[in-house]
């Protein structure tokens, strides 16, 4: 009788609980709280938080290889590299590259902000992460969730959960993290600087942009093809003006559906045994450093451009080079209006901001090419 009771008890999860799992519940609940109460990237942090809870319930089998439900989402969605490119299709469909075309030299700011990615890559590697892991951690500095997940799935799947959560958390905190750095590196008169009216961009230019970009970028960095091809296809849907339904589906329905299948399995990669290691937790510090460096290098590059170029730009625009669209551009605008309330930088900041998306994908493509993922 006693034996039967014990074996019955063993079929429940209770006896298999570990303290680590309970710590993970708290982390999951904190993410759910931040998503609901603070609205920090709720579309992602809510399913991620719930995924963390699920995978830390013993014996659920949800992440068991070949059979678990979340394992299937993970394997066919993320490991097979389907979901991040589909998210890029949606991003392409709602992104207007016009502000970038109106002022093409702003693309340098989108590239400059990637310096944080590379610096953090070297720092992480020097600290003992292997080269694949270091590249994935550096990618957090690009402030691009799908790209971070994409590169993690290729180079360091064991770090995916932490890197994705770090990337999305810091993106949500853009309005908190960036302004102090921006104020530190610029003077009030620099922040108050108005931008010259941009040139108008023709419909033909907007149509040619996704096609030409696809050719140039994929020929240069073939490994970026999955993300760039979908980004530019989405943008072609948008600018062609003849497939409103496809554009709508890409940026609304499809985007929403794949977001569900993205967040849940990402959370499910964060099992206590994998996540609660100093090596993984340190990613959050390195990711923050990457993010700060990207903001700073973007601003400093803008100031450098002002030294050599006649046509001055507001150095705040450099901070929009991180690819958190459109949060970083909004932050630039807000900090600009603090210095002069009639300074409307929003649309100018969208230029480096959308350039940052392309820049981050290119950085990821280069890592994958060089490290042979």
């Amino acid at each position, binding site marked *: 009788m006693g034996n039967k009771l014990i074996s019955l008890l063993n079929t429940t999860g209770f006896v298999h609980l570990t303290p680590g799992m309970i710590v993970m519940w708290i982390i999951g609940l904190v993410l759910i709280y931040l998503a609901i109460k603070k609205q920090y990237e709720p579309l992602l942090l809510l399913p991620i938080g719930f995924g963390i809870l699920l995978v830390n319930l013993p014996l659920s089998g949800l992440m068991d290889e070949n059979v678990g439900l979340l394992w299937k989402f993970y394997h066919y969605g993320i490991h097979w590299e389907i979901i991040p490119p589909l998210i890029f299709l949606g991003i392409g469909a709602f992104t207007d590259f016009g502000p970038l075309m109106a002022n093409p030299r702003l693309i340098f700011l989108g590239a400059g902000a990637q310096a944080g990615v590379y610096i953090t890559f070297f720092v992480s590697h020097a600290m003992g992460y292997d080269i694949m892991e270091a590249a994935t951690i550096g990618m957090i500095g690009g402030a691009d969730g799908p790209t971070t997940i994409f590169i993690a799935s290729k180079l360091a799947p064991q770090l995916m959960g932490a890197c994705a959560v770090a990337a999305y958390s810091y993106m949500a905190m853009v309005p908190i993290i960036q302004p102090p750095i921006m104020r530190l590196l610029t003077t009030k008169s620099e922040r108050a600087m108005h931008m010259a*009216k*941009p040139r108008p961009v023709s419909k033909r230019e907007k149509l040619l942009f996704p096609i030409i970009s696809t050719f140039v970028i994929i020929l240069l960095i073939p490994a970026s093809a999955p993300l760039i091809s979908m980004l530019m296809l989405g943008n072609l849907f948008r600018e062609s003006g003849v497939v409103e339904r496809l554009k709508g589906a890409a940026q609304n329905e499809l985007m929403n559906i794949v977001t569900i299948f993205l967040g849940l399995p990402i959370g499910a990669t964060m099992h206590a045994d994998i996540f609660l290691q100093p090596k993984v937790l340190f990613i959050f510090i390195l990711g923050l450093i990457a993010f700060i460096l990207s903001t700073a290098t973007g601003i400093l590059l803008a100031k450098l451009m002002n030294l050599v170029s006649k046509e001055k730009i507001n150095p705040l625009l450099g901070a929009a080079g991180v690819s958190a669209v*459109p949060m970083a*551009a*909004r932050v630039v*605008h807000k900090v600009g209006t603090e210095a002069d*309330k*009639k300074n*409307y930088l*929003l*649309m100018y900041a*969208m230029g480096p901001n959308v350039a940052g998306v392309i820049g981050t994908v290119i950085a990821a493509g280069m890592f994958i090419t060089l490290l042979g993922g």
Partner: protein
Amino acid sequence: MASEITAPLPGKIVRMDIEVGSSVEEDMEILAIEAMKMENIIYAPCDGTIEKLLKKVGDEVEEGDVIATVA
């Protein structure tokens, strides 16, 4: 001499605190344009009275579009 109030950025007019005949002072909040899900306050360029109103709440504007004239 009439001066124009133009849209400093493209977006949708979501609030309008003026009508024809309203008197405005320089730097007074007169309307709001929503762009990238962000509300941007537009301020009066000078003192005067609103002479013409060419746009209304809900209208989409392009950068440089004249919204109203002040005289």
